[in-house]
């Protein structure tokens, strides 16, 4: 039986381990997929998930049930992932589109069987800055102005990064399955 969010929240606020585990079990696919999209590999994504969950448990007393709990969790996890990226002091350097596409190892079989996983792999092959901007714009639906504010870059830089990210992904897709996408 899947517990209600209210029960999970109440239990987590009291520090109950069972409630924390229930939260993890219920939301782990969503939370882990976010981590996988922003991280560059599986292990790194697990580390980020761990950090993100600790943040969720320690800050849950601040949550006010004005919006969906899932949305709040998603936002916290995205913020946590961005925080991890900031710790690395990444740079938004320009990378040649062809270089990335050339290094990408296409796997048509994987794509046909596990399309989502293959797409995540493509994302993980993108340079960090491009991947971050693509995730924020396409998946979290932020505007370029907001992305610029978040990442401390110009709005035009955000547009440019997105454009390059999409060009790289297109190349990777073409390499994998032809020009279908």
């Amino acid at each position: 039986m899947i517990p209600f969010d209210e029960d999970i929240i109440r239990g987590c606020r009291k520090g109950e381990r069972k409630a924390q585990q229930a939260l993890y079990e219920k939301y782990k696919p969503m939370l882990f997929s976010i981590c996988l999209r922003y991280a560059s590999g599986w292990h790194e994504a697990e580390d980020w998930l761990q950090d993100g969950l600790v943040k969720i448990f320690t800050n849950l007393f601040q949550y006010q049930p004005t919006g969906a709990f899932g949305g709040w969790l998603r936002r916290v996890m995205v913020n946590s992932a961005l925080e991890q990226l900031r710790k690395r002091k990444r740079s938004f350097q320009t990378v040649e589109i062809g270089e990335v596409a050339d290094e990408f190892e296409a796997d048509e079989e994987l794509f046909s069987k596990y399309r989502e996983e293959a797409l995540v792999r493509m994302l993980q092959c993108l340079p960090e800055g491009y991947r971050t901007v693509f995730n924020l714009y396409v998946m979290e639906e932020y505007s370029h102005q907001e992305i610029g504010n978040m990442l401390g870059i110009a709005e035009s830089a955000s547009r440019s990064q997105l454009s390059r990210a999409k060009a790289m992904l297109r190349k990777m897709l073409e390499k994998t399955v032809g020009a279908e996408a």
Partner: protein
Amino acid sequence: MTEHQHNDNLERFFKENLERYSPTPSGDFWARMESSIPPKPSAWKGLATSFRKWAGLGLLLLVGTTVLVLWYRDKQEIERLSKQIAKQEAVASQEADVSKAAAPISSEILPEKASINGAANDVANASEVADAPVSSPNLKTAYGKKAFKQQLTASNGRAGSSGVAFKPLQEAGENQVVEKQVLAENAAKELPISEPIIDETLISQASQSMAAATVEPSDESYFDLGFIPVTDIFVSSINNHAPSVKHQKIKPFGKPYPRISVESGTTTFAMPLSRLFSGDTLYAGRVKPSYSAGLLLHYEISPSFALQGGYHFKNIRSSRMELRYHSVPFIAVHKMKMSRSISLEAETGFVVNKLINMRSYTDGLALRGRKNVWLGWQSSLNLGISMGDHVTLLTGPTVGSAISTVANGKRTWEAGLGLNLRYQF
């Protein structure tokens, strides 16, 4: 357009597929996770720790400043008193010199001591016979001690013209000498000792001068005994045959009102931003010490009331973000004088805050729902410590709250400690 459409398709393709993606972490993930979960968080504990640290620092600053100010004041007071004592000693020395200057007069008349004594004896005899029936011309002129003293007063006035002070002579107990001098003069003029020398004009002048005598609160002679200024009256030497008193304008205690001061300083305060961004956990974070600093124009309307306004730069911080504002306060001040150098000032007023920028340096997300301008209320209770004629140190607690909403339709509050220096022109 085709390219744009293609890009939109790509975006849609990725979004739809990735949203369906439901990966699962390794099987032992939760076992590893459990060990890293901290015990139940206590928001108040973190807040209290932060406040304890800064309250301790603030208290240390306050105590240090107070000690420094008191030490400085004591030093100034000691210097002032030393000057005062030196001045009084100089005055006393001058008076002693004057007394010494009068001494030759008495020595001059010593040779005539015999005749003076004779005259004095006559006076004594006269007083003895004052009640007796008048039977001889000598006895007719006998007029008693009262008349003699009046004569003495007038003669003393004349003595003043030669630099002999009225007060020192009396205090030195040399009236006897002067009496003898007067008698000697009278004898030299061959005036009958029975004839009274009463200069009514001089007496009148002296009376008028005494009546017009003004008590002068002189800065140099000012002793601070709490509230009560103790003034001393300088009676000048006798001029123009009359014991005049030194006349001076009464100086006001400082410049007249209204007057203008400039106040500069800083306030360290805490503002819980989590109230504003409670829906977004990582926006606010833990409360961190915020500060504002700037310059205010202080317009004193009366000794107890003033208005002030100016500019402050305000930086509101939490562990994950900073909000920077241009801040323009309009404050009314009520002053309560506690002693000559200590005052208590109650301040209250409005503050208009205009957002300069915000920085979310840990999570990197843009603020949504923020207001660019918000109105706040602010009050403080300051202890004013005078550090000289122009400078006052002000320190005390300050509290405030937002009147209009700051962000997301929510308000917040602030509490802190201020430290300001005021310079009066």
